[in-house]
């Protein structure tokens, strides 16, 4: 931290194998240091940092003031005790954090790497690697620094890396060295290598690198394609050599791990404003009292000098007033006590722990509990208005399951829907009996399909043959019979796996052949051509020659595309299949049609010629290729169609329903295609058939986008008008339109406003008006339209339109656009936003939103690392927001209200006393009382309230999502509430001063001794204060747990204990000066008058509050009050029986409806969404990546967890590394089932007997399947591919492994192999 920073580099220049030369530049070594302190610097640096907090400095300043005797109205310890407490707690926390950072730094720095020194490979610690060194990497090793790839053991000097730690993408990336260096090969040659690299200075752009290699008088440009970045893991590459370009802190990884922006909650900001106001108030009071002091000293004090001379430096009343100002600042500072900040932190920490501890946010499948990674945002969770969600992996599981198919006009896979929910208990088909190569995780229920295969229906065979041949999947077979598929897209994996289980096992491929095992018989096809997929073609084909020598083209693709290219004799079949496809699409399945075409030898040869010509063409190669493809993909025979389910995560539709009932708007931002996104929108009930209208904005130009947006707004207004019969809305609309027109005209924002005359019929209503339209609209906007919509001059329009819709889906958006959308809403709507996602592409929006939530255990850890909260299931979001967030908000608000109240009540008494003590800053209370009031007497009850309070039980907040609204509207703590609290506090202080004043000024003890002495007065007031605030907290506490009882009664008890102890003769005899209140407690509290006074003051303080609250509750009850009240009534007359039956009865219905997806017309018939990119086919045929299949796949299983990076990045949570490493065990999935997603009912009314009801409802499909599948014999963790039907948790992992061609599964799944029974 104090190291001198060298001037920023302009460019980097280094020479390989030349340490001397490179040393000139003083590049950073590869030693990283993420720790902030060492033993010596800890204290000063930490203190320095802590005193950068305004609050701490403020208290230090007060402390210094108190050391001046003329000012000091309080002893120094009243400030220093809390201050030291706070500082040391923070210091301890920082120290622990730093200790763990040291540990992880050490671990990383001491990793071994092989460095080429003097022509020999030597083991060196990572930290000793220098820029310019050449190091050797082996498979599965972490890349030690940012390297220029020189050569690798693979053909073409390719090298595969996994960048999950860097950008979160789990698919593998290919890197290739320059051809000149790839020839260097062995260490001897490399040692001679003296190329010089000139490149850009260190930066944090992960996807960009530019530089030049100078070697042997030649220049070679370098790009990111040649770079291996630190943090990546080498995969499927035996070894490679790299030249260190950036080391240690200069690496892109480290440059990226900058301190994340500190997020603050709105309550935080409000609190800071309020604290500033209070300081202003404090100064005002100080000034008033100082003026009072001046007047008093002049009028009275000057005359009183014979008894009370001024302190030496004071020679006139003005100076005295000046000092008195500071004295009052000291004694009145308790309006903002230091304990406020500490308590707030403690409460937030507590809430975070409650989130971490929540069993209902624990996913047994991935064995991850929810984690609050940021402890400071909890109450904001109760105020969320907009949720921005990623689709893949967040709403969906990113698992494709082969669900249904239609072969030759017959539909298979319908079994459950026909026979009803009960039949779900049916075992999935057991393939392994007759097919040893079957994937055990694959589930299919329809026996008839298997029978059809057995019987040997040719169409069925051909159908699966297509699936087993026409794809770009790679297979691994390390052990005989144990196949692992690595597919580009999960869809493909699902299809190939389906074929595999039905006896058409794809086993291996070479660039020219595909070997399958067809019903136990090995068949090798000659692969003649792969007609690769692309987005325009929407299909892919292969042309193969079977062993018998017949040539066939197999094609699969989107039905719309494929149906156009069918042979005319297929038309009848096409119609039937089309019906099936409609059904599938209505169920939200991703469909695809399958066809073949027989080719004669001549046809093939003729075409092959043209194809080769096109392939070799230098100009317009792509166009010519696709023309060639087009040519051959004609007159195909339809075989059937597949339906793959993009599995939603559990409870997604219910969650979305509940969230939208809570008035939270869910926007889906996805990189997926429009069709897919819309499909998912339907299946998760964001879009429904009863929506008034769905607007699709798909324009490519500014004008068209603007036009489309305008039209949708018009339509909204129209429909509103027609429905509401006009009048009222019309009037509003007109008024609103005018207002808006003016406002917008001033901003000069958009054309359409200025074009319209200002008060024209409501074409340009304000967003608030639009939002008030009751229609159900949805907006779907694509990425290229969004690019225009997010321009400065259109963003408002877009926002208004979008915000008026109930559902917004943005598809094909880039990560940056995701962030921009979030930013837009954040900026203009002043609403709390939450972004949820699982992948690296969500990081930007997660960081931008007020609250970022990462889905853990899915796609790498990038999103989780950037997030504030993480859990593994989307459905936990409802619990996080509606239960934890709501409570946090409620608790925090109640806490703050009470806290300000109690401190004003406490402090303002000094103000009133000032008028009676010559404005001399004499305190009313004993100084010990002042010291202990905030940290002992009143801290714990309010803390307990802040931690444990509940207005309604958790189930209710899910049943009544409307309960969430006060948070969104910021009703519980705002400036108004604050002033009410303050007013109440001041009122209390008035009562607490003037009641004892009125009573005691004349009262005497029963033995005649006057009660009006200072000490008696102090004890009386203090006792009354403690009792009043205790009664108040008792009134505020809505949920009296044993802890609350203990704290409240304990605080009172502690007060009296300490009071009597402090006023005892024992302490006095030891320190007569410090404890001069000797006997006061005894003398005072023995007097009935004093107790009568205290009782009087308490009643006067509390009665109005009680009356006010009662009236509010009685006349204008909030929903929470009503719910609470009803709860109470019901509790009193518990009727536990009779509901069970009803619940069960309801369950059947509920599960039925949960099962059945909305049937819809063909309007949204889905095309097959090829999720993968094109170009993979080429890679296969070129044989470039063939190496992969031969490689030891162990790497996938034994993926190292990279703890150090976790630690490095999670600054705050150093303790929770390696979170995902514990393998799930067989039994615990059983345990998982009992944590049902809480009531997911979307209809709050008429729901009784939740216990049974919810249980069945949420479990109906899955639980049962679970119990079946999870039999003890079940063998877990073979490397088998397969898709899972109807049992989503068995295994999410499979899906991840399917796409394992490009990505190994997430750690927990990978490890599962080793833990299998």
């Amino acid at each position, binding site marked *: 931290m104090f190291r001198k920073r060298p001037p920023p580099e302009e460019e980097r220049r280094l020479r390989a194998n030349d340490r001397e030369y490179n040393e000139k530049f003083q590049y950073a070594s590869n030693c990283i240091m993420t720790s902030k302190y060492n033993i010596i610097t800890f204290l000063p640096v930490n203190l320095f940092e802590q005193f950068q907090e305004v609050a701490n400095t403020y208290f230090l300043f007060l402390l210094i003031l108190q050391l001046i005797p003329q000012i000091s109205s309080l002893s120094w310890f009243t400030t220093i005790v809390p201050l030291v407490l706070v500082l040391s707690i923070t210091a301890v926390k920082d120290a622990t954090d730093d200790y763990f950072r040291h540990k992880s730094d050490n671990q990383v720095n001491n990793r071994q790497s092989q460095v080429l020194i003097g022509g020999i490979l030597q083991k060196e610690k990572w930290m000793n690697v220098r820029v310019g060194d050449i190091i050797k990497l082996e498979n599965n090793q972490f890349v030690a620094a940012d390297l220029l790839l020189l050569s690798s053991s693979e053909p073409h000097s390719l090298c595969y890396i996994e960048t999950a730690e860097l950008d979160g993408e789990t698919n593998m990336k290919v890197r290739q060295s320059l051809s000149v260096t790839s020839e260097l090969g062995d260490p001897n040659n490399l040692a001679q290598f003296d190329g010089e690299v000139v490149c850009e200075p260190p930066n944090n752009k992960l996807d960009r690198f530019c530089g030049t290699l100078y070697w042997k008088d030649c220049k070679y440009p370098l790009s990111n394609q040649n770079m291996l970045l630190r943090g990546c893991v080498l995969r499927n590459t035996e070894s490679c050599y790299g030249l260190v370009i950036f080391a240690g802190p200069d690496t892109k990884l480290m440059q990226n791990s900058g301190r994340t922006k500190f997020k603050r909650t709105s309550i935080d900001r409000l609190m800071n404003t309020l604290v500033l106001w209070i300081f202003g108030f404090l100064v005002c009071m100080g000034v008033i009292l100082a003026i009072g002091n001046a007047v008093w000293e002049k009028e009275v004090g000057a005359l009183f000098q014979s*008894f009370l001379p001024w302190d030496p430096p004071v020679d006139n009343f003005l100076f005295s007033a000046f000092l008195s100002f500071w004295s009052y600042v000291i004694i009145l500072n308790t309006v903002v006590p230091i304990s406020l900040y500490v308590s707030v932190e403690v409460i937030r920490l507590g809430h975070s722990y409650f989130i971490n501890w929540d*069993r209902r946010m624990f996913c047994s499948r991935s064995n991850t509990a929810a984690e609050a990674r940021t402890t400071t945002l909890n109450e904001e969770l109760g105020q969320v208005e907009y949720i921005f969600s990623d689709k893949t992996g967040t709403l969906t599981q990113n698992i494709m399951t082969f669900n249904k198919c239609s072969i030759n006009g017959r539909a298979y896979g319908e079994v459950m829907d026909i026979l009803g929910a009960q039949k779900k208990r049916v075992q999935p088909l057991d393939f392994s009996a007759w097919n040893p190569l079957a994937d055990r995780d694959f589930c299919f229920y329809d026996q008839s399909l298997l029978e059809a295969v057995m019987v040997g229906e040719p169409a069925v065979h051909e159908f699966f043959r297509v699936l087993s041949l026409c794809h770009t999947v790679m297979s691994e077979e390390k052990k005989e019979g144990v196949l692992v598929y690595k597919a580009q897209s999960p869809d493909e994996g699902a299809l190939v796996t389906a074929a595999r289980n039905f006896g058409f096992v794809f086993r291996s491929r070479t660039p020219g052949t595909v070997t399958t095992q067809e019903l136990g018989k090995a068949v090798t096809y000659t692969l003649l051509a792969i007609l690769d997929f692309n987005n325009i073609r929407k299909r892919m084909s292969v042309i193969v020659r079977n062993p018998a020598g017949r040539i066939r083209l197999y094609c699969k693709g989107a039905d719309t595309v494929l149906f156009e290219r069918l042979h005319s004799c297929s038309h009848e079949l096409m119609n039937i299949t089309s019906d099936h496809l409609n059904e599938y699409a209505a169920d939200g399945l991703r469909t695809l049609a399958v066809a073949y075409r027989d080719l004669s030898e001549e046809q093939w040869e003729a075409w092959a010629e043209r194809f080769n010509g096109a392939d070799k063409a230098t100009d317009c190669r792509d166009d010519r290729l696709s023309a060639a493809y087009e040519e051959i993909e004609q007159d195909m025979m339809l075989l059937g169609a597949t339906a793959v389910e993009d599995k939603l995560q559990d409870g997604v539709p219910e969650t979305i329903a509940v969230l939208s009932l809570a008035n939270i708007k869910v926007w889906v931002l996805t990189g997926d295609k429009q069709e897919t996104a819309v499909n998912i929108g339907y299946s998760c009930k964001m879009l429904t058939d009863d929506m008034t209208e769905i607007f699709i904005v798909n324009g490519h130009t500014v004008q068209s986008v603007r036009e489309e947006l305008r039209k949708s707004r018009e339509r909204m207004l129209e429909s509103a008008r027609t429905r509401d019969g006009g009048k009222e809305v019309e009037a509003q609309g007109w008024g609103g339109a005018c207002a808006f027109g003016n406002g917008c005209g001033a901003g000069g924002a958009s054309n359409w406003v200025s074009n319209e005359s200002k008060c024209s019929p409501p074409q340009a209503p304000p967003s608030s008006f639009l939002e008030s339209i009751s229609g159900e609209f949805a907006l779907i906007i694509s990425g290229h339209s969004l690019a225009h919509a997010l321009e400065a001059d259109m963003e408002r329009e877009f926002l208004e339109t979008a915000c008026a819709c109930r559902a917004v889906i943005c598809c094909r958006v880039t990560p940056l656009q995701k962030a921009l959308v979030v930013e837009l809403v954040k900026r203009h709507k002043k609403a709390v936003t939450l972004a949820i996602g699982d992948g690296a592409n969500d990081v930007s929006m997660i960081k931008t939103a007020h609250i970022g939530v990462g889905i853990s255990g899915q796609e790498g850890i990038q999103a989780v690392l950037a997030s504030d909260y993480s859990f593994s299931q989307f459905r936990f979001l409802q619990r996080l927001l509606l239960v934890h967030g709501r409570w946090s908000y409620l608790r925090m608000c109640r806490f703050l209200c009470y806290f300000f109240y109690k401190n004003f009540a406490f402090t303002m008494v000094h103000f009133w006393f000032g008028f009676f003590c010559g404005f001399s800053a004499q305190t009313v209370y004993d100084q010990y009382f002042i010291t202990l009031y905030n940290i002992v007497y009143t801290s714990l009850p309010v803390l307990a309230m802040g931690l444990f309070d509940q207005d309604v039980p958790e189930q209710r907040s899910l049943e009544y999502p409307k309960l969430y609204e006060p948070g969104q509207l910021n009703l519980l703590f705002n400036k108004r509430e604050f002033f009410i609290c303050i007013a109440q506090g001041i009122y209390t202080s008035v009562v607490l001063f003037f009641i004892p004043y009125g009573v005691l000024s*004349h009262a005497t003890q029963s033995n005649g001794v006057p009660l*009006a002495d200072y000490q008696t007065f102090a004890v009386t007031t203090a006792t009354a204060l403690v009792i009043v605030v205790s009664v108040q907290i008792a009134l505020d506490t809505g949920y009296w747990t044993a802890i609350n009882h203990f704290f409240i009664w304990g605080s009172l008890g502690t007060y009296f204990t300490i009071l009597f102890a402090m006023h005892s003769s024992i302490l006095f005899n030891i320190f007569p000066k410090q404890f001069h209140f000797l006997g006061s407690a005894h003398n005072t509290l023995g007097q009935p008058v004093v107790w*009568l006074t205290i009782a009087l003051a308490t009643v006067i303080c509390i*009665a109005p509050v009680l009356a006010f609250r009662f009236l509010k509750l009685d006349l204008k009850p909030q929903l929470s009050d009503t719910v609470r009240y009803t709860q109470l009534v019901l509790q009193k007359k*518990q009727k536990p029986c009779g509901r069970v039956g009803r619940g069960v009865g309801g369950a059947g219905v509920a599960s039925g409806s949960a099962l059945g997806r909305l049937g819809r017309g063909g309007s949204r018939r889905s095309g097959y969404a090829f999720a993968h990119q094109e170009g993979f086919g080429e890679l296969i045929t070129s044989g470039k990546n063939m190496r992969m299949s031969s490689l030891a796949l162990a790497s996938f299983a034994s993926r190292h967890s990279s703890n150090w990076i976790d630690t490095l990045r999670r600054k705050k949570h150093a303790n929770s590394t390696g979170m995902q490493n514990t393998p799930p065990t067989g039994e615990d999935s059983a345990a998982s089932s009992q944590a049902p997603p809480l009531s997911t009912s979307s209809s709050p009314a008429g729901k009784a007997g939740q216990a049974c009801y919810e249980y069945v409802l949420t479990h109906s499909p899955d639980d049962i399947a679970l119990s079946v599948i999870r039999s003890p014999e079940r063998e877990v963790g073979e490397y088998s591919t397969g898709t899972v039907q109807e049992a989503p948790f068995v295994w999410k992992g499979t899906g991840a492994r399917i796409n394992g061609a490009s990505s190994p599964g997430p750690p927990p799944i990978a490890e599962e192999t080793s833990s299998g029974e």
Partner: protein
Amino acid sequence: MMASSYSAKEEDGHHSGPAGLGAATRTRKPDNTAFKQQRLPAWQPILTAGTVLPAFFIIGLIFIPIGIGLYVTSNNINEFEIDYTGTDMSSPCFNCSQNFSWNSTTPCKCVLSFYLDQPFESNVFMYYGLSNFYQNHRRYVKSRDDSQLNGDERSLKEPSKECEPYRTNENKPIAPCGAIANSMFNDTLDLFYINPSGSKTQIPLNKKGIAWSTDKRVKFRNPGGSNPNLTAVFKDTAKPVNWHKPVYELDSEADNNGFINEDFIVWMRTAALPTFRKLYRIIQKNNNMTPTLPRGNYSLEVTYNYPVRSFEGRKRVILSTISWMGGKNPFLGIAYMTVGSICFFLGVVLLFIHHKYGNRNNSSDIAS
């Protein structure tokens, strides 16, 4: 309408229990404890009409009688107050107050006569009262050395800095030091009953038992332990500047002299407010049936030592009897009656509002 949607049973966690126990030990599943799952059993009070309204009535019904009781008790107390500051030309003490100087050696005396129209039956407490005297001023309050007053020898020689500027005088430590002690009230008050015959009977004034017993026994101690020779003990100290005589001559009796002089202790217990009274003497009730102070004429002889004119202070003498709850204190009784009535009234108003506008109709049918 809300009723139907409720289940009385807290289903919460019921079915999750047994399965959770079966979870493997290695799972990260959070513990299923009531605390961690926020299911601690709790009492959830609600402000309902059934609780709030009775509370108001009960408060009212308790407070009003207490108030009446207090008021009556307070009214039965005899109290007589006489101002003897002497600011008025007509006042007998006018001269004394005008001719005051700290250094005067001859005491100025004045006699005030007054008439008690009611006999004082029980023990009578005699107070002196000061007004506009800021015993609660911060600088005043802290200007004392409790160690010294507790008999600490070192503090006797070396008083605390807090005592400045009354810490030392002519290089000798002041005992007792500080502004409080320095400004000790030193008027002497004697009370005479004027018999109908015209002769004066001095009323015996008891000067013991006027301080807090803890002060007398623990807080204040003469230095030198039990050494009866206070003169020797205080040998090397100076008397406070304003005092006429040193601390060891405050009284003739050994157990009421020096720091443990009760008048001194009473003075050192600073008042909370600028107008205060302090107990001066107690007139014990005689054993016979005659009142302590019968109705009639009295004269109060004041040895006027204490100046208050400079800061417009007032001096008073108060004679009062007391009851179980202390001296005359009408405020408390009135306050209780008022608050009690208001609470009761509030209860009525709330009841009315609740009946007329109350929003709980929907839930009352659940209850029925």
